């Protein structure tokens, strides 16, 4: 192979070559930056990368190589350049959440997930653009301008983790980290034609993920194929003493369970795929419906039993989400007060006005809207009507999932999004934008694992198919995803 192949190489392939000694980590890092330049990752073009430092990244790669000794040529991600959403704490590069309020902030500590990736040899090459504090579905709500979709630069890459999705789709890195609160990895994965996976709540430590809505937030991964997504998750997963909500359960090997239709005719024999009718409304784009039907046919031909099911509380997910998420956000974002770090605007007129000036100038309109909404729903006299009620409905939505899984369904299959990537600036009504997460927010509310994978294209634009499994049933989900990916082959990108 040559370094020119870099944009098409998987993380697994890069690490294998580094371990074999046929390429060096530094070459891979340089190739990543070279690719970034050639596709226009910078602010004046795709606007994927907010912060990067090529010299530092190359140096880190060289340090990594110098630590290789004898047979030990690095870990499972040896020399793999990765991109990280700018709301995950990294050492060396800023962590601003694409917000002015954190302008110049460099974290003095690192997220657990990043540490685990680095321990396996990954090298962080860039911090990627996103919706400010992960609030948005298009990466248009960034203080640093929108990211453009590499598939069609007039369109959004989805959001809020649009920069990381675009970085993977454009071949700048094989894998990248995003975060999900309501679909912020699966939706951009669908829009950019790549794989995005959100694990079970508690599977990956949130330590170092700047909180938006703590009970819904998940560190999640992008990759160009299912195997890399599984590999990335395997590395990050596992209990963390710094996150009380992380699960103290063993991490199985997700990739060992893969069975390809090449080696076995019916690798999904005995697997039941549920198709929830609420995710296929009459209004669903006809092209998307067709591609989903094609994917379901593939699943049948792989041996799976496909069955209609119902998740009756699905329509309540968006209203519930937009109560719980802003409520938690209003509290989580209180720490950005100009006192200890980030931007401070001192009006010279006392504490109250410093708070007002700092926060008014520091937060963009969508963040401000959600803080106000969240403050309102938690106020005395409204708590029971909104927040408490929303938590009750959330339990019903979770119950929908647990009952179909208890009823013999192994995984659910749905479209990831109701539409393909929309044009930049085309949606101005916040509620219309919120509906873009209609099929994804449910899994965050229920805490179940879910992923999006390419199932084809409509008018040249990628369409994602979503798989959802029961809590901690990632092995099953990956197994079905892998078989489907193999069966679809190049059709997934046509």
């Amino acid at each position, binding site marked *: 192979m040559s370094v020119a192949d870099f944009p098409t190489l998987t993380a697994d392939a890069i690490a294998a070559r580094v371990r074999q000694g046929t390429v060096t980590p530094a070459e891979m890092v340089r190739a990543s930056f070279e690719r970034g330049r050639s596709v226009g990752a910078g602010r004046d073009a795709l606007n994927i990368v907010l912060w990067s430092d090529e010299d530092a990244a190359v140096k880190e790669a060289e340090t990594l190589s110098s630590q290789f000794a004898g047979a030990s040529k690095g870990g499972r991600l040896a020399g793999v350049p990765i991109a990280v959403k700018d*709301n*995950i*704490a990294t050492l060396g590069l800023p*962590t601003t*959440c694409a917000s002015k309020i*954190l302008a110049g*902030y460099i*974290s*003095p*500590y690192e*997220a657990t997930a990043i540490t685990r990736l680095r321990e396996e040899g990954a090298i962080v090459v860039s911090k990627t653009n996103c919706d400010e504090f992960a609030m948005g579905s298009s990466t248009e709500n960034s203080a640093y301008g929108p990211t453009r979709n590499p598939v069609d630069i007039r369109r959004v890459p989805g959001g809020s983790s649009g920069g990381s999705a675009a970085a993977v789709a454009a071949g700048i890195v094989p894998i990248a980290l995003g975060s999900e609160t309501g679909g912020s990895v699966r939706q951009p994965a669908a829009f950019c034609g790549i794989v995005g996976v959100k694990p079970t709540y508690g599977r990956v430590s*949130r*330590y*170092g*993920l*700047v*909180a938006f*809505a*703590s*009970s819904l937030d998940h560190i999640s991964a992008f990759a160009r194929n299912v195997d890399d997504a599984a590999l990335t998750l395997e590395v990050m997963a596992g209990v963390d*003493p*710094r*996150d*009380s*909500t992380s699960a103290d359960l063993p991490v199985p090997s997700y990739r060992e369970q893969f069975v390809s239709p090449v080696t076995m005719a019916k690798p999904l024999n005995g697997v039941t795929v549920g198709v929830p009718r609420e995710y296929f409304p009459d209004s669903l784009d006809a092209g998307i419906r067709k591609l989903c039907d094609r994917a379901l046919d593939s699943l049948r031909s792989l041996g799976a039993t496909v069955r209609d099911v119902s998740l009756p509380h699905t329509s309540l997910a968006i209203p519930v989400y937009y109560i719980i998420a802003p*409520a*938690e956000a*209003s*509290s989580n*974002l*209180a*720490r*950005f*007060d100009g*006192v*200890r*770090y980030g931007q401070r605007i001192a009006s010279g007129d006392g*504490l109250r006005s410093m*708070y007002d000036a700092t926060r008014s100038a520091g937060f963009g309109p969508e963040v401000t809207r959600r803080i106000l909404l969240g*403050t309102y729903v*938690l*106020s*005395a006299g409204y*708590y029971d009507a909104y*927040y408490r009620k929303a938590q009750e409905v959330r339990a019903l939505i979770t119950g929908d999932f647990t009952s179909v899984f208890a009823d013999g369904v192994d995984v659910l299959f749905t479209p990831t999004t109701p539409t393909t990537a929309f044009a930049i600036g085309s949606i101005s009504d916040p509620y219309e934008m919120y509906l873009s997460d209609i099929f994804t927010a449910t899994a965050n509310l229920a805490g179940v694992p879910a992923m999006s994978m390419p199932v084809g294209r409509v008018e040249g634009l990628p369409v994602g198919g979503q798989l959802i499994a029961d809590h901690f049933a990632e092995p099953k989900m990956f197994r079905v995803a892998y078989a489907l990916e193999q069966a679809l082959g190049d059709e997934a990108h046509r």
Partner: protein
Amino acid sequence: MSADRYEMVVGLEVHAQLRTRSKAFCGCSTSFGAQPNTNTCPVCLALPGALPVLNKQAVALATRAALALGCTVHPTSIFSRKNYFYPDLPKGYQISQYDQPLATGGRLAIQTAEGGEKSIGITRVHMEEDAGKSVHDRYPGVTAIDLNRAGVPLIEIVSEPDMRSPAEAGAYLRTLRQILQYIDVSDVSMEEGSLRVDANVSARLKGDTRLGTKTEVKNMNSFSGVERALAFEFARQCEQLERGGTVAQETLLWDAARGEARISRTKEGSHDYRYFPEPDLRPLMLDQDWIAQTRAAIPELPSARKSRLAADFQVSAEDIEKLTANPAIAEYFESVARASGDGKAAANWVMGDVLATLNAAGRDISQFAVRPADLAQLINMIRDGLVSHAAARRVFAVMAETGKPPAQIAHEEGLLKVGDDAALATWIDEVLAEHPQEATRFLAGERKLQGVLVGFVMKKSGGRADPKRVNQLLASRGGGG
């Protein structure tokens, strides 16, 4: 004005710092007096992305306190966020417990001024974290923030409005502090801020069963300050009501120097804290066996120790109170009393020379050089006539300095009693020679002068002469005999 038409109603909220080495939700030290902002980390600085992890030792201590106060400890309790903006509150919310606290429904018995006992209800005991400190006087015109205290674990103990006078409030606080000290959950020092008291006070006409509008009084820095603040605020409310006015629900800050409480400019009552369950922490689940073990391991409470010591040793109730005020002193007394077999003498020594020495040195008994066994030995040396009481006090002083055993000191310092007739006769001769008037009168038969002469001999011998033998020897010389 007739304030005696009114009855005072008081409920107290006590914050006690739990005696843990590390903070409630991170590993930072809780040590007092460190350089500002050195006991901090991403968690207690509320850096973006940091998460709290509950300190198990804090839970154990809070549970012990709740059980010692007779509360029911709940198998499930919930941490909530109390949201408000303040520069020394780094997260913009305090992690506390709200509608599902650790424990509820306890009682505390206090002694009333009339000598009776009164039971004060404990509404709840919950866990929370402390805020940092705003420092207004260090840099001119600027407020500095010290976050060393931020995240330090506290319990808040909320009483029912069961107290009717400043004295009852004082008795409640002293009893509560003693219990927390005995069970070793808190340093309970108001000076170091490990104990803080807020008082809710209202006035109502005697005989009225409804509660009046209460005000909250804060910023007291001693128990007597609490009592004074309550008296002040009650009088203010009575005056208001007498004039036909009403009491507004507000917060007042006690100014100890001026002896008055002033209405706080920040309207605490109007705060909406927007409590909601803390999503970063799981519900606190305590298993019944663990609660039972914690209960079984509670050290002896003050009331139990008092009755036990009163039953075991011949010591007055008043002295028992003094001896048990502090658990370490009580422990010390009991060891001395047991080892010497003389409770009365042990009590006198502890309340006398021991406390006086400690107070003079500003020391804690844990740092005291005199071991209980050595003090017991000294007591027995007096009993056995080896040293006089006066000499024993000198031995004790050296023990407190050096920590050496009493027999060795008495020997080295020549403080053992002298009963040898020849030595005593020499001292007697000298005394008679030095005091010719008294000598002449005594030898002439004025027997009442014998005591005076014994005193001179004792003084001359530096307390070493055996007074009994001196008396005998003098008596044999006295005239008219």
